[in-house]
């Protein structure tokens, strides 16, 4: 089986240049691109130290990739496994990385694909077996629910939003997370996901009203 190409195609060179320029101008709150960490990683790679390059990328993106995987897959063990697979693939393919996009876009692409692969396999296995735990989205998210001493309204909003995100299918949830959590532009997402930018815009534009309605039903006034 031919090794999968994880490097964005050459025709995205202009998109990559534009999005890199845009990324440096975006508010850091939204952008996840760590320009300095990527520069350190690529410099280490050029010096022949792939391990140091991986370390720099783990420091910059390890947690955010895990968060993304966990929110998409909703399984801590599976999320950690996918996170590991993502970065081992990064480590393996770094020498072949053509630098036509940001490293962040490249890693996001790998993470998205691996999460979707894992979700698809899990869904197929569940369809062939009797599920032992059914979906129960009426229960408040225990891991995110404020404790008895934590009465912050914002914390309540966040807990409700986590719960509402679970109502979206994995691919839709992943798209929303890529847009808002990972700070990718639609053009970057198109490269990462392998779908048209317009398709992704439609997906997000339909998902947001669903989230809004869910939050309002949960008593969150937006």
């Amino acid at each position, binding site marked *: *089986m031919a090794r*999968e190409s*994880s490097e964005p195609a050459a025709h995205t060179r202009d998109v990559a240049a534009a999005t890199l320029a845009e990324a440096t101008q975006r508010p850091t709150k*939204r952008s996840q691109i760590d320009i300095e960490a990527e520069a350190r990683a690529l410099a280490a790679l050029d010096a022949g130290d792939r391990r140091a390059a*991986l370390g720099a990328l*783990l420091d910059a993106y*390890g*947690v*955010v990739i*895990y*968060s993304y995987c*966990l*929110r998409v897959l*909703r399984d*801590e*063990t*599976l999320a*950690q496994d996918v*996170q*590991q*697979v993502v*970065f*081992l*693939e990064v*480590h*393996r393919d770094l020498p072949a990385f053509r630098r036509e996009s940001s490293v962040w876009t490249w890693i996001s*692409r790998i993470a998205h694909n691996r999460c979707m*692969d894992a*979700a*698809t*396999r*899990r869904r197929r296995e*569940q369809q*062939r077996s009797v599920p*032992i735990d059914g979906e129960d989205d009426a229960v408040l*998210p*225990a*891991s*995110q*629910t404020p404790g008895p001493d934590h009465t912050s309204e914002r914390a309540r909003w*966040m807990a409700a*939003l*986590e719960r509402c995100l*679970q109502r979206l*299918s994995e*691919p*839709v949830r992943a798209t929303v997370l890529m847009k*808002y959590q990972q700070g990718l532009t639609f053009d970057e997402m198109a490269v990462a996901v*392998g779908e048209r930018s317009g398709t992704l*815009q439609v*997906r997000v*534009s*339909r*998902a*947001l*009203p*669903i989230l*809004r*309605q869910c939050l309002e039903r949960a008593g969150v006034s*937006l």
Partner: protein
Amino acid sequence: MTRDGHEPDDVQDPPAPREAEADDAAWLLARMRGESPAKEPSTAAAYAHLEGLLVDLPSMAPPKGWKEDILRRADEAASSGGVEPVRAGAIVPAETPVAPVGARADVIPLRRRHRGWLIAGPTVAAAAATIGFFVMRAGTVAPALGVSYVVAAGDGITRGSGSAKLHDHLRVTARLADAGALRVYRDDRVLVAECPRDPVCTSRPTGKLTTHELDLALDAPGRYQVVLVVGDAPAATGRIGDDLAAARAAGATIRDPKIPTFIVR
């Protein structure tokens, strides 16, 4: 198959929205395309608020030692000569020992692929155990005793191996060939659940076996231990030592379900 080589997905794009939502979706789409469509200020503010919440969702920390694990496995791969990482969810051969979901074996031997040896390791084992459980459930060779478990948080997230928090749900499935009972004790002195018998259990025949499914809310702090009693045993008193001794005296056997003891705080 997409151009990346990963499997196609049922994208399940959101269904066509109702009228009010359709208006909002159309406005959002126009805005995403760089237009400046008009909208009621309250609605525009609501979506701005929602987008802000999405941006501000907190990061979730991986388990301790995650970075070192990845670096170690990368070092192993490098010393093995560029070994291909195993995909999460990769199917392992039937002869691989099936561990309960959430359990991690130290090493799982994997068959040789034409591209070289695959990496074996705890995280691969965890993914393999997950798939292995479902392979078992799918009706391949079913052992006389089959046990699996998950610990689920309220938001549907499955906990990692050996961890549980207050108000999580412990869900155990046990398949027994003979009469028997699945019991959960807390602090060695309280029987919190027993299958069959308790409302938190469902039991049903599965061929020649009986499948017991337990869904227990961990609503009190303490140390939770799961035991399997295979054979006829007297009714439990709640004190684990006395109960197991009585079961053995009656000719039953006590089986280790390979489910960790959970400390719930």
